[in-house]
């Protein structure tokens, strides 16, 4: 499913114009991202939780050139699906 299909689907179900839906989606996601950058996690009922995870700094060595590089710490998004969704997915037929 693509972004366009999602917008069309939501628009038809909620009876809101596609433009408004698109704006709402943008605002939602930027809000979520901003909250996660502050260290807050966002719990979406019936779907899962988006959590910010801090990755510590680490030292890497390029095996070819032997150059050691210090990778700084960073914060990444981790999605933890809700248990019911997990179970549903688990039982879903194997695709591909």
């Amino acid at each position: 499913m693509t972004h366009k299909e999602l917008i069309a689907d939501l628009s038809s179900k909620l009876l809101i114009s596609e433009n408004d839906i698109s704006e709402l989606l943008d605002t939602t996601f930027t809000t979520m991202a901003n909250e996660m950058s502050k260290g807050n996690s966002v719990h979406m009922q019936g779907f899962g939780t988006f959590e910010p995870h801090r990755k510590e700094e680490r030292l890497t060595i390029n095996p070819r050139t032997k150059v050691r590089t210090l990778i700084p710490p960073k914060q990444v998004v981790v999605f933890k699906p809700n248990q019911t969704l997990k179970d549903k997915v688990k039982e879903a037929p194997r695709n591909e």
Partner: protein
Amino acid sequence: MNNEKLTLANIAAYLAQQKGITKKVAISFLQQLTETLGEELLRDGEVKVKGLGLFKIEWHESRMSVNVQTGKKYEIAGHNKITFTPDKSMREVVNKPFEHLEPIVMDNEPISANDTWMDDEELRLKRFSEQAQEILGIIADLQQIQPEDKNQTSQTIETPTVSPTDPVAHIQQNVSIDKQEIEQASTSTTTNIADSAKTIVQKKSVEKDSIPACSDEKIMMERMAKQVPISNKRWVALSILFAVVVVISIPIYYYFFVMNHGDDATQTTTVLASTSSTHIKTIAAIPVIHSKPTATKVSTQPTLTSNPLTQSRTYKETIATETFKEGSRLTLMALKYYGNKLFWVYIYEANKDKIANPDCISAGTHIKIPKLNPKLIDVHNPQCLIQASALQTTYTKRHAIQAK
């Protein structure tokens, strides 16, 4: 960092506030969104949402595992799992607290180049000291032989001014003796190189020359040591030949030294500084009472060459002035103007009156880039780098204490 757990209600409240819609509509929108996402994911196995990321269902093959408590093996059946890859825009926003950090390369090239240079220098010095040891042994052998055939040479070797325990002085003395012999024996035109040097310049040249001269000496001495038992006459002839070679090699080596290193006079001085410092170490390692020529040499050279590093720095001239903007760093300025990040400390020193804390400089500050002694910021000289990093640690420590 506060680790709160926000729910859909929180987001809905924010949405309602921002978009001028009722909370009810916002909540229903979000619920519909999650519902659709879940449904579509289950149906298609893949949902791509702009601004959020890509959800995908991936098949995990069955695998064997061990129950940690019972130690029994069991099979984990193959199953599907949801993977989530955040969108680039999402990743960037979430990583905002750390976005200013960049990967730091620990072994950058200039330093590694310096390392090899140091190795080379150490190797040469090591070879030199090894040679000195060998020559010392040969001289000792010669001294045992000499009293039998020549009284004159034995007297000159055991001159009262030289303490017998000093190997370096001994070699030098020996070299000068040889030279004197040649002056007497052959009517060579070289003037007074053999005279124990009185000016510093002459001393330096003798010191430089003694390194390659030693290699000649070594070969010659070895030959001598082999052939001495055969005949005394041959030994005398060889010693004269050896002395001639020494005298010839001095100007030749000096000429090449000037040719090779004359282009960058500054570099030679810095090189000399380091060589002399290591040189002193090697000399000091052997318990020695320095005779006069070596002692003066040791004392004069460091004072001459280590000056640019140790002297207090003044910042009168400026190359340029930079205005501090968001995202600019002292280290980057140092890299731009001096070629190495470490030298930011000098910029900081020049602007101490304006910068309270080098880690936190307010935008709009005008930073003066001082003109520095090129010897102080020689990227290829490890001592400069060491000096700069030492300053860096002192400043960072000081500000860490202030911050507390």
